[in-house]
């Protein structure tokens, strides 16, 4: 770094320090007497307190409220105006002749959301792992401008979902640049966003585009943690590159890949923002995912009844599914660790 940059950096640090130090001293006024009273041994509880208050208020209490919402009915928000309805909402949600055919269900929008989300997550996570792995392997090689290429793939991760949705909607429009390119090369225009099949494909593609970089970096970290002497040994033995990859790299990478799988699935099930901006859930309901259902039922019902209870019930179902997903995957990673220990 040049001298000027160091000077600027130091200047900023000093300027930042003033209010920071002020704030710290201010809090110390409260802390010091507290410490005198309760002693050093009990200080951790104080440090933990603000975080716990926030968690309690904004996570635990709402969880309880959610349960309460899901067992009461009516379109009012305040509990005073709601009436107890027991398992009515849950019965509603699960009232289906045939779980595989959304149209046969009472609350068919919910089941469409479920089917779409399952389809979406399977393909999005699967493809994302594949591409993250491929990209990480390539980025791990000695290539010119490696640092630059690494940040390139990470760039879309920094964009907000609204921006991601807008940019791609703009590109994939019937009269957008992609169709212009296709037509210029003799093809016919595609309805990337308004044909049910294509809309889902576009959604999966855009979602991968926006998140791949993050997982690539995680896999890359895992690749770099593999000791190079393993490769040296393989080279000495004359092993081909392909065998090296499948017999050495991949098995050692498994823990990282599992982390990616868990994170990506959990995030994938919760996808809403970018798809909502990209397609609005359309055409019809072909890209409506489950969080969109919760959002529309409880909040954005365009003048129809705002059914907070139903939305809460649906979100409880979603929560349980996520919990199961996580537990299954934790079990998988535990059993994998055990397997390794056996070796």
């Amino acid at each position, binding site marked *: 770094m040049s001298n000027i940059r160091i000077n600027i950096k130091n200047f900023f640090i000093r300027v930042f320090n003033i209010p920071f130090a002020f704030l710290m001293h201010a809090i110390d006024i409260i802390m010091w007497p507290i410490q005198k009273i309760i002693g050093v041994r009990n200080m951790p509880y104080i440090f933990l307190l603000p975080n716990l208050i926030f968690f309690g208020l904004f996570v635990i209490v709402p969880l309880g409220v959610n349960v309460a919402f899901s067992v009461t009915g009516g379109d009012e*928000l305040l509990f005073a105006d709601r009436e107890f309805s027991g398992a009515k909402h849950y019965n509603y949600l699960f009232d289906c002749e045939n779980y595989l055919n959304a149209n046969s269900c009472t609350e068919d929008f919910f089941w469409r959301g479920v089917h779409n989300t399952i389809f979406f997550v399977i393909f999005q996570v699967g493809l994302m792992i594949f591409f993250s792995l491929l990209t990480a392997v390539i980025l791990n090689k000695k290539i010119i401008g490696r640092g630059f290429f690494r940040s390139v793939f990470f760039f879309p991760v920094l964009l907000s979902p609204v921006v991601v949705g807008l940019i791609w909607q703009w590109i994939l429009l019937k009269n957008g640049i992609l169709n212009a390119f296709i037509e210029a090369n003799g093809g016919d225009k595609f309805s990337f966003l308004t044909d049910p099949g294509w809309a889902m494909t576009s959604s999966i593609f855009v979602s991968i585009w926006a998140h791949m970089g993050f997982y690539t970096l995680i896999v890359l970290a895992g690749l770099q943690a593999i000791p190079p002497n393993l490769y040296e040994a393989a080279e000495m033995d004359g092993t081909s590159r392909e065998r090296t990859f499948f017999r050495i790299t991949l098995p050692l990478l498994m823990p990282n890949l599992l982390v990616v799988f868990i994170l990506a699935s959990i995030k994938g099930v919760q996808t809403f923002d970018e798809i909502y901006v990209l397609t609005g859930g359309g055409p019809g309901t072909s890209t409506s995912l489950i969080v969109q259902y919760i959002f529309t039922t409880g909040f954005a019902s365009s003048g129809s009844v705002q059914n907070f209870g139903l939305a809460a019930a649906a979100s409880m179902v979603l929560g349980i599914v996520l919990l199961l997903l996580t537990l299954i995957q934790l079990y998988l990673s535990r059993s994998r660790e055990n397997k390794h220990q056996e070796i």
Partner: protein
Amino acid sequence: MIKYFFKAVSVTAITISLTLVSAVSFAATDVRIMWYGDGDKENVPIQGQIDAFNAANSDINVILDIVPYDAIMNTLPIQLAAGEGPDIARVTDLGGLNKYYADITPHVANPQYYEDSFGPFLKWYRKAGDTSSIHGFHSTMTVTGPYVNKTLFEQAGVDLLGPGATWAEWADAANAVASKLDIPIPMAWDRSGHRVSGPAVSMGAQYFDASGDPKLVDDGLKAMTQMLYDWHQNGTMSKDLWGSVSGTKYHAPNDWWNAAEVVFMMSGSWQIGRFANEVGDDFDWWAVPAPCGPAACTGMPGGNALLAFTANDAVGRVMDYLSSKEQLGAFIGEVLAIPGHLDLPVDYQTDDPNAKHALETFAGAVPTIDQVAFDLQAHVDNRIMFNAIISRLGQAIVGEMSLEEAWVKMDEDVEKQLKEKYGG
């Protein structure tokens, strides 16, 4: 110890002085208006009127929140449910929010003025059984109806149809023009159940049963939705428009229309100002009389109203100002809308022959609006019916269910939501 007290005192002193410096004084009463407008054409004039009012009345501070239409439909009800919300809002779901409206009769200067000027519309805001409250006034009245791109008709050499033409005939004409000139979209409708309802009534839909309860799917509605479905399958209407959003989301094809890629557009009188502004000179946009069905040749009345959620003197004064003949007249004249006022002289600020013709056409359509359409507009739960129509029809069009299934689901949707709202 001393160090501690010194620190405590100095920090407290600095904090207090900082807080005082950033404190804002509230000398004036705030009146908050949540407003949506059809583009600059409406937002600029209203902002001007508010600014003038604030300048002339230093004890009231009117804040105009210009929000998208979506916010009025979705966020406003939630806020009101949570006890928040603006003092006044420009509302289209007139009946749906009526449990929140405040009666401002004791706070306005002359309640009789409201009765005389807005009489028939006032009851659209009142709860069942209430015959006297004044909740606000009609900002603009709207009528739904079609426009055509007259320039394209001329280029194709196809004549415009006159009054009495049916929907089928108009569809044929639009298709003829489109195929001659290679226009991608012969016919486009706003994606809204409200828009479908006028033509549905023309085809014989009754919307209510004999005792006045909502009964959505009948032969008339079936006929209209069948037509819309068929048009989407045979290319008269493009799946790209209604297909680009889902559920009950509103979508207007203005960007396609502005680019002259639509021959026939079913929308309403609120577009006049917007077209004048955005289309300008590019082509001739021409309002045509409502196409006919076996029962009527009607559109849907509508409009929006400025309604009060808080009842106090400040709100009353703002309402009086905005509803006065002078201000409302000036506003209507600027935005090129139809007034919801029984006796309002308006000087339309336009030379555009298209705009003038459109205003005449729509104003002339008001007396021909069918009674069923009026009753539908006045009904508290009409949104539920409109949403059911458009979300299920949309699904049928993209192939997620058959039209017959969609009809069943429409009735089920209405029934479910009414049950949730009223219990039992």
